[in-house]
Every structure is written in structure tokens, then in C-alpha cells.
């Protein structure tokens, strides 16, 4: 079973040289720490920056330079700054190669729910609906089950959804799965120490298992 760091490390392996990437808040933000330095990639922040750098030192802190999570950041050489309209033009136009974000639920046809829980205070969707409706490739970082043990990989989402038929890949604490265009979670890899049976029990949606399922290698 993977902890948050493990999920982030496994997702980092999906990153390819030359990619422009948008990282959501939470686990996705951690992914940046594990992208091999041999790869040239550029991180987009939807509030208006291409080329997010490391967090600043005390001396470098600049209130005019934050990421979409409102954290202070720095810029890489070759960065570009722009407005929110331009930023979402980029996102909507399909110019960002990979979007990594968290989810509360994913359905077997790729619907995602990650913005609202009925009965709880609604904070808003922020940029999530634009990102999921527009991205060429979406990887979701999530817990396979709730704290109560209920599966979050479902036939249909129970929570209000953020976007339809958009998730392409899931990296959970238990497994790596593709969401197939025709529907269904195709099991690709098991987390270290996790059995196929455990994954089957934790997946309420249609799970597709073909041949031997390898354990993740980091």
C-alpha cells in the first residue's frame, strides 16, 4: 500500500520529456519533487505562470508570486507570466500535455467527482472543471477507498461530478489502473504488498484483469 509520497513517486514515472504539466493541489503538487531532473518539463500554474520553480527561501519570498494553491513560489529560467484568461485559453485549447489532480470518486467511464460534498460547505470548483473538460491526458491521484472502507472507484459517481468521461489513468494507494474508453478500470500494477484480490474487493466499478498483474517498480 502506498502513502501519499508513494502515489506521487509512481505518478512521476508517467512524466515524459518535453511535457507541459498542470499539477493540482495536494498529492499532485508532491509529484514535482520526484520528476527526474534529466527530464525537461514545464509546470503550469493556472493563476498565470509557466515554469514553476521550487518554493522560495526566506529571502526570495515575493507576495506577487504564488501558485494556484496560494503558496509562495519561484520561477524557473524561461518562465512566462500571463493573465487568467490566457492561462485557461492554454488549458482549454489543449496545449497542456498532462493534468494531474486529486479525486473523491471516479466512475468506470471516467467521470470524476472532486469538488463538492452535499451537506458540507461548498468552496467552489476553482479551475477543476476547466482542467478536466479540456485536458488531453488526465491522471488522478486518489485513495482507493474511503476511511470507512467504501470504494471510490465506482460504476457511477455518487457525488456531484466535476467532469464526464475524462479520467485516463488512476494511481491509488493500491494500484495503477487505466480507465478504458469503452468503460472499465483496467488493472495495470499492484502497489507493493497488495494482492489482486484486495484490489478486487476495493473496486466497486467494473475491474478488468488480464494476465499476470505486476507489482509497481520504483
Amino acid at each position, binding site marked *: 500500500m502506498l502513502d501519499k509520497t508513494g502515489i506521487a513517486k509512481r505518478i512521476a514515472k508517467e512524466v515524459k520529456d518535453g511535457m507541459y504539466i498542470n499539477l493540482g493541489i495536494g498529492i499532485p503538487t508532491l509529484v514535482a519533487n520526484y520528476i527526474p531532473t534529466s527530464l525537461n518539463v514545464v509546470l503550469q*500554474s*493556472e*493563476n*498565470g*505562470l509557466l515554469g514553476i520553480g*521550487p*518554493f*522560495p*527561501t*526566506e529571502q526570495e*519570498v*515575493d*507576495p*506577487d*508570486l*504564488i*501558485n*494556484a*494553491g*496560494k*503558496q*509562495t*513560489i519561484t520561477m524557473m529560467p524561461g518562465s512566462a*507570466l*500571463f*493573465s*487568467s*484568461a490566457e*492561462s*485557461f*485559453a492554454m*488549458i*482549454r485549447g489543449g496545449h497542456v500535455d498532462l493534468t494531474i489532480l486529486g479525486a473523491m470518486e471516479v466512475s468506470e467511464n471516467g*467521470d470524476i467527482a472532486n469538488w463538492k460534498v452535499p451537506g458540507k*460547505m*461548498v*468552496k*467552489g*470548483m*476553482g*479551475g*477543476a*472543471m*476547466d482542467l478536466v*473538460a*479540456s485536458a488531453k491526458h488526465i491522471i488522478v491521484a486518489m485513495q482507493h477507498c474511503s476511511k470507512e472502507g467504501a470504494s471510490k472507484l465506482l460504476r457511477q459517481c455518487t457525488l*456531484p*461530478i*466535476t*467532469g*464526464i468521461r475524462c479520467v485516463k489513468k488512476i494511481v491509488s494507494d493500491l494500484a495503477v489502473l487505466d480507465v478504458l474508453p469503452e468503460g472499465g478500470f483496467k488493472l495495470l500494477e499492484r502497489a507493493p504488498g497488495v494482492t489482486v484480490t484486495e484490489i478486487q474487493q476495493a473496486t466497486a466499478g467494473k475491474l478488468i484483469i488480464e494476465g499476470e498483474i505486476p507489482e509497481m517498480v520504483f
Partner: protein
Amino acid sequence: MINKVVFGAEEAVRDIGDNAVLMLGGFGLCGIPENCIHALLKKGIKGLTCISNNAGVDDFGIGLLLKTRQVKKMISSYVGENAEFERQLLSGELEVELIPQGTLAERIRAGGAGIPAFFTPAGVGTEVATGKEVREFHGKKYLLEAWLRADFSIVKAWKGDTTGNLVYRGTARNFNPMMATAGKITIAEVEELVPVGELDPNYIHTPGIYVQRIFQGKNYEKRIEQRTLSK
């Protein structure tokens, strides 16, 4: 060139009355028009509709206007970090309209650019689509969204000249440039007001045609929400 300079925030907001529809620039607390927010607070006008990506925090930004119950409605994409906001929303004192961030940005741009409606994929199949026209183009579904315009747009820039040309700095740009185009009256507060001719015409973010009033703000606090340092 046309001189747009006003004396300060109070003069800039002089004719904003009860029930006005305002756009306020900024993302979180980054790039918000601090001086004008304080002037609106002092002025005490009520019933405001505020179009702004966020709603500030309890004791800063638009949060200050919420505390004094000057805001009737917020139109935002994310209103996370504000306990007073939550209280007013749950008690029904405050109306909130949540809009996907990219749709919000584009609707404001459309308002400024004279485009009454456009199609966007964000929100298809979600509750955001309720009541909206859905149309398929090239095998993908899109929603029809309308422009947004305001009585007054209040933006914050880094530098500006006396004719209203603006330059933003870093990610403090965010929603400010589009909002500057979408107000019947656009008010710009800047950290540094410079004479005409000092800004390079090639690097102006907001051309002065969009700005009706400009002044040099003072005592910028520029509060940081998440001070995150590298280890």
C-alpha cells in the same frame, strides 16, 4: 494623451452606490486592489455584487466587506478560506454563484471584447450545465456561456501611467487585465504612477483605453496566504 489621474481611492470610488455590480481583481490575496477595498469599507455602501475569483480571508481583501455585510452576492470560482463567508452563506444572508475559473475568466474577457456568448467545454454534464444550451462541435459537447460586465471594475497594477496604461507584476496579473476591459468605469490603483512616455509601448499589459481613473495607492500590505519555503 488623456489624463485619467484622480487624487486617491476615495475620489476613485466616489460614485459607486448601493447595489452596484463590481469586478475586483486578484487571485487569493495576490494582486487585489487594497486601497479601493478600504475606501469601499469606509464609504459603507451596501448590497454589492462582487465578481472576483475569490472572496478574501476573514480580515483581509473582500473578507472585510463581507464582515460589514456590504456584499449581497459573490460571483467567484473558489471561496474557500473564510469563516464569516460560510456563516453568511449558510444563514442565507449572502448569495453565491460559483463559476469554473476558466469560464469566469473568459466570460469577463468576452464582456470587455463585445462577445455576448461563447461555447466552452467546462461544466458539461455537471450541475454547472443546468439551464444552459449544450451543443456538440467536432464530436465534443460544449456549454453556451454569456459575457459578464460590471458597473465598476477595480483593478490593481504594479505600474501605470497618467493615461491609464498598466503593467502588472508576476502572478499578481491574474484576473486584473480582463476585468479592466469589462467595467463601464474601470478604476486602476497602482504601486507606482509614472508620467506618460515612461512605460515601453511594446510591454503594456492593459492599454489605457480601458481605464477611466487611475491613482497611486499607498501602504500596500500584500498579505501572503500560504508562506511556503523550501527546506
